[in-house]
């Protein structure tokens, strides 16, 4: 219909107004903190900063779980007074196996294994092979564990990064076993990389009775302070998860740097029990499978606090304290991708991007007026509204704008004009066929609409695919174009049509300017 109801008119005007309002936070300061003030975030390529992609070590997660499962299996067999021999742990196939003491106990042992509580559903399978009972960790379940571990790691990574004073970091999961860290303004991420690369798993364990050779139930670990290998029991007496606080201090006796720690009541009780029972023996303070120090227990430690001295300097002591306060990662993380943009390059990019964006826009505007006259001008107004709506929606989603995103915006504007061109050419054809102005307008709009929807739908589908399967810059590009297609449909099918209709109603021209 060539008639716009008042409601529809208000609707279109209202949406444009909302678009303007949504854009405002990008240019103004928030008047009161209570107002939702949503802005577009500038991507790292525009503001400078570092991007790190961290990979969770699945193997280590599997290894740890196999270790704890092994303890569980032994304990369960002991509780049921079932015997076993030839216990084998195979990290390569992620399985444990043992032979029951006698055939009579086989069924009971199998039943006991099947009743072991899994940490996640279907964590492991229990089977019988060549007279042995085999427990195998399932890959799917390990991936589920990895997802959990990633969720925990994100929290810890955030705490560690916040402690460095980085401003406005963004930390997010990617896929099953990865974390993306974005650090705006950080142009030298070396310290953060080393902080994140440390698992910071602190354990207190007793040394093996004979610390120079590994015996069952103990492992040879590197002693960093002595530069030797020392056998440490696998059994963990007190764990870093019981830490409540840690800090870097100067040791009163030696004058060097040390890290003090405070345990919670459960940790303090465990610590007191162990130290009371083992006075005169040595215990090891182990950080990520390396012994920091292995002092003698002189007297029971009951207050639940202590001090680690291990050849620290000011930086390494405060870093360790920071790591201990933030907590240990459930599995090691390693950096697999790093991208750093210096601040000067970011500023240059944004300038170049904005200049070319504006120039492109100007060229398109001039072209439209020259080739399509009055209707071209209306198309330009619609184009401007389109830009505002795009920026508004991106602000609403608090989306990130990168250089490829800006290019996507510009291309959307180029393509948006296409819809207007289709309409104009169609109206022109109808006029040539001898229709009157009103009929030509109506037929032109109606016929062009089908074509516009077809062409935009294909572009929409293609870019949704791009958004789903793409990564990083490609995703951002696809997002802006997908949003752009929606705003284009609105501005061309409703707004520019409204402008033409209003003009026609007011001017009542004898012929159309096409």
């Amino acid at each position, binding site marked *: 219909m060539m008639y716009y109801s008042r409601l529809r008119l208000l609707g279109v005007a209202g949406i444009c107004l909302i678009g303007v309002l949504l854009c405002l936070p990008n240019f103004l300061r928030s008047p009161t903190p209570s107002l939702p003030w949503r802005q577009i975030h500038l991507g790292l390529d525009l503001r400078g900063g570092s991007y790190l*992609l961290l*990979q969770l070590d699945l193997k280590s997660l599997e290894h740890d779980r196999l270790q704890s499962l092994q303890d569980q299996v032994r304990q369960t067999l002991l509780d049921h007074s079932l015997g076993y021999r030839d216990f084998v742990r195979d990290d390569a196939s992620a399985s444990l196996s043992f032979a029951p003491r006698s055939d009579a106990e086989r069924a009971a042992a199998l039943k006991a294994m099947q009743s072991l509580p899994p940490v996640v559903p279907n964590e492991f399978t229990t089977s019988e092979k060549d007279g042995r009972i085999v427990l195998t960790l399932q890959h799917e379940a390990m991936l589920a564990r990895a997802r959990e571990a990633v969720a925990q790691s994100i929290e810890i990574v955030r705490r560690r990064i916040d402690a460095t004073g980085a401003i406005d970091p963004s930390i997010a999961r990617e896929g099953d076993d990865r974390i993306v860290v974005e650090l705006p303004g950080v142009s*030298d991420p*070396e310290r953060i*990389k080393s902080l994140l690369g440390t698992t910071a798993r602190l354990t207190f364990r007793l040394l093996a009775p004979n610390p120079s050779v590994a015996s069952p139930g103990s492992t040879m670990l590197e002693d960093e302070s002595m530069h030797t290998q020392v056998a440490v029991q696998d059994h963990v007496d007190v764990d870093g998860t019981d830490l409540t606080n840690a800090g870097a201090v100067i040791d009163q006796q030696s004058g060097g740097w040390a890290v003090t720690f405070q345990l919670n009541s459960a940790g303090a009780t465990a610590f007191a029990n162990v130290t009371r029972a083992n006075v005169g023996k040595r215990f090891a303070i182990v950080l990520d499978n390396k012994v920091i120090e292995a002092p003698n227990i002189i007297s029971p430690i009951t207050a639940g606090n202590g001090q680690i001295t291990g050849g620290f300097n000011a930086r390494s002591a405060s870093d360790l304290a920071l790591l201990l306060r933030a907590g240990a990662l459930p599995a090691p993380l*390693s*950096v*697999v*991708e*790093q*991208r*750093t*943009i*210096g601040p000067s*390059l970011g500023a240059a990019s944004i300038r*170049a*991007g904005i200049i*070319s*964006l504006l120039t*492109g*826009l100007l*060229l*398109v505007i001039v*072209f*439209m007026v*020259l080739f*399509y*006259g009055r209707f*071209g001008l209306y198309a330009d107004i619609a184009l401007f509204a389109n830009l505002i709506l795009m920026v508004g929606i991106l602000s609403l989603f608090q989306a990130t704008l990168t*250089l*490829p995103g800006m*290019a996507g915006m*510009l*291309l959307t504007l180029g*393509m948006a*004009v*296409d819809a207007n*061109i289709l309409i104009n*050419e169609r109206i022109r*054809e109808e006029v*040539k066929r001898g229709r009157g102005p009103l009929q030509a307008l109506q037929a032109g709009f109606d016929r062009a609409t*089908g*074509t516009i929807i*077809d*062409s*935009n739908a*294909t*572009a929409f*589908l*293609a*870019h*949704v695919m*791009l958004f789903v*399967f*793409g*990564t*990083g*810059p*490609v995703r951002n590009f696809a997002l802006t174009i997908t949003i752009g297609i929606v705003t284009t449909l609105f501005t061309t099918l409703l707004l520019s049509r409204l402008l033409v209709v209003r003009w026609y109603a007011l001017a009542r021209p004898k012929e159309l*300017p096409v």
Partner: protein
Amino acid sequence: MLSRPLFRFVRDDRRINFMRGRHMGLIVSAVLSIASVILFFQPGLKLGLDFRGGIIVEAQTPGPADFGKLRAALDHAGIHPDAVQAFGSPRDVRISINAPEGADREAQTQKLVDGVKNAISAAEPGTQVLRADAVGASVSSELFRDGLLALGFSLAMILVYIWVRFEREFAISAVVTLILDLTKTIGFLAITRFEFDLVMVAALLTILGYSTNDKVVVYDRIRENLRKYRTMPLRELLDLSINETLNRTLGTSMTVFLAALPLALFGGSTLTGFATVMLFGIVVGTSSSIFIAAPLLLLMGEKRLRKETNAG
């Protein structure tokens, strides 16, 4: 000034016999595409960091860069870069290292990038690091796979959509035309030695999207004319449809071209390659809408399309 358009691309009553040149168009297109496929294998694309893995550090030294000194400093640090080269101004240095081999290569890659930064800052105090990227080998192969996947799925979606909305002949000739467009663009990339990275994948996909858009508009008109002129031979009908949509085809190409042109000229290092490839794609996409997509339809659907519309 607003009462009449000041310019038109072609007069409305102009009828160009495009179908006459259809064999020529198809042959030229096929030859160019075959040449592009050969270029794709030899010399091949210059893979960017995203897909190759490795390290790129770009730095700006306080004075004109002393390459000998920088190389010596890197050498001293035990780093053997694959290239130390100038880019942009004489103060700008780009150091690139291919992904290290071996079991521990992910960790090695990350260590190297810090090593490079430290070595050049020590050699030339006051050096500003503009960009430091390190992509591990496993990530780069995944990015490559994802990029191809995105490309493949987009093509498939286009095929399905046109199939549903139009007919089989339209869908197949559209996708064949798109593949011809795509191969030429890849040939263009191989010749110009622009780095093929994730942003380029986005460029290829935009070209695809734009080119599809163009074909859909022409096909839409062909479909409309098939219903309107039931007795007109397909060849004439295709010519008529192309001519009727010619002003629109050229107009839209022109606006997209104008929008991308400033980016290609002064968009900065990231966007220049992207926009230049876009410009090439716009030209290829527009010409293939006229010279390839419609003739293919004639070749495939001469009997079938006419019969079906007669029956329906």
